[in-house]
């Protein structure tokens, strides 16, 4: 089993993601320069966080035209797991693999802090090891994390079960006070119809080891472990 972590010019969390996959999840992960990425060499792909192309014009828009994205789309079509973290989520949205848009935080500032997430869909390739309603603790660090979609798009997301994570308080209540960036419906992460493509703004690679979370939790592991065991054929992903 081989998982690719794509490195775009300006990616920052690529090494972090490879580190966690290799040393915490104990799976074969490789850092791949975007121009050299080929779909058939890997079983899953992660688009890491960072500032690809310096976020010029709009976060993720230039990377969406990278030749790597053709291969990412192919993997998505084949049902392989495709994970977009933070800037990776922005790139997936700009490339049309996930619906909606990610706008500037309503606070107009970069926000770096730990938040709570309520797991809404435990049947995707990345969340089936979790439990619907479970509260996870993970950090966010972004400028443009405010999820937006029009009325029709939002309704479809909810109807199809494509909303995967929502910002909540420690008790799992999805309330305005828990929303750090103004995302509609407190949406922090969504998936495609098939459940094999997931994008989320929070950083699971920063929440996979107890020493980093401040309260001994390591909730980020769920996302990576779910993906690995999905590949081993131990789960069936469906968003319904």
């Amino acid at each position, binding site marked *: 089993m081989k998982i690719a972590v794509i490195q775009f*010019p300006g990616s920052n969390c690529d090494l972090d993601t490879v580190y966690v996959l290799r040393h915490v999840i104990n799976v074969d992960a490789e850092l791949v320069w975007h121009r050299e990425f080929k779909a058939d060499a890997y079983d899953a792909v992660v688009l890491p966080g960072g500032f690809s*192309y*310096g976020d*010029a*014009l709009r976060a993720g*828009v*230039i990377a969406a*035209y990278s030749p790597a994205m053709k291969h990412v789309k192919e993997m998505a079509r084949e049902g392989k797991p495709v994970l977009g973290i933070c800037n990776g989520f922005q790139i997936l949205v700009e490339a049309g693999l996930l619906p909606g848009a990610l706008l500037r935080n309503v606070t107009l500032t970069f926000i770096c802090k730990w938040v709570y997430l309520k797991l809404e869909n435990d049947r995707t390739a990345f969340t089936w090891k979790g439990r619907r309603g479970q509260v996870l603790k993970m950090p966010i660090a972004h400028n443009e994390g405010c999820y937006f979609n029009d009325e029709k798009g939002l309704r479809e997301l909810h109807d199809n079960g494509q909303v995967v994570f929502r910002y909540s308080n420690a008790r799992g209540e999805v309330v305005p006070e828990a929303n750090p960036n103004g995302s509609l419906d407190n949406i922090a992460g969504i998936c495609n119809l098939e459940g094999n493509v997931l994008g989320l703004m929070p950083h699971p690679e920063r929440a996979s080891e107890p020493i980093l979370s401040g309260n001994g939790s390591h909730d980020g592991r769920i996302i990576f472990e779910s993906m690995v065991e999905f590949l081993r054929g131990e789960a069936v992903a469906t968003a319904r």
Partner: protein
Amino acid sequence: MGTYVLEVVIENKPTARDPEGETILRDLMHRNGFEMVRNVRTGKYLRIEVEAGSSEEAREIVFRMCNDLRIFNPVIHACSIKEAGRK
């Protein structure tokens, strides 16, 4: 008295670099078939509706505001004001 619409564009001075513009030109446009684009400068756009007695007065108000409120920093920015009619 009327409501005048003015467009304010704040860019880096022409002799200063604009790394964002350079990145868009080089990595987005030139790499994807638009080599004929020669230059890109980025900036901030404000469309301001202001009540004034004349278009000259409106322009003068906006000019003074941009300076007094440090809407642009003359050390690094160039600020242009264009009239865009009345509301």
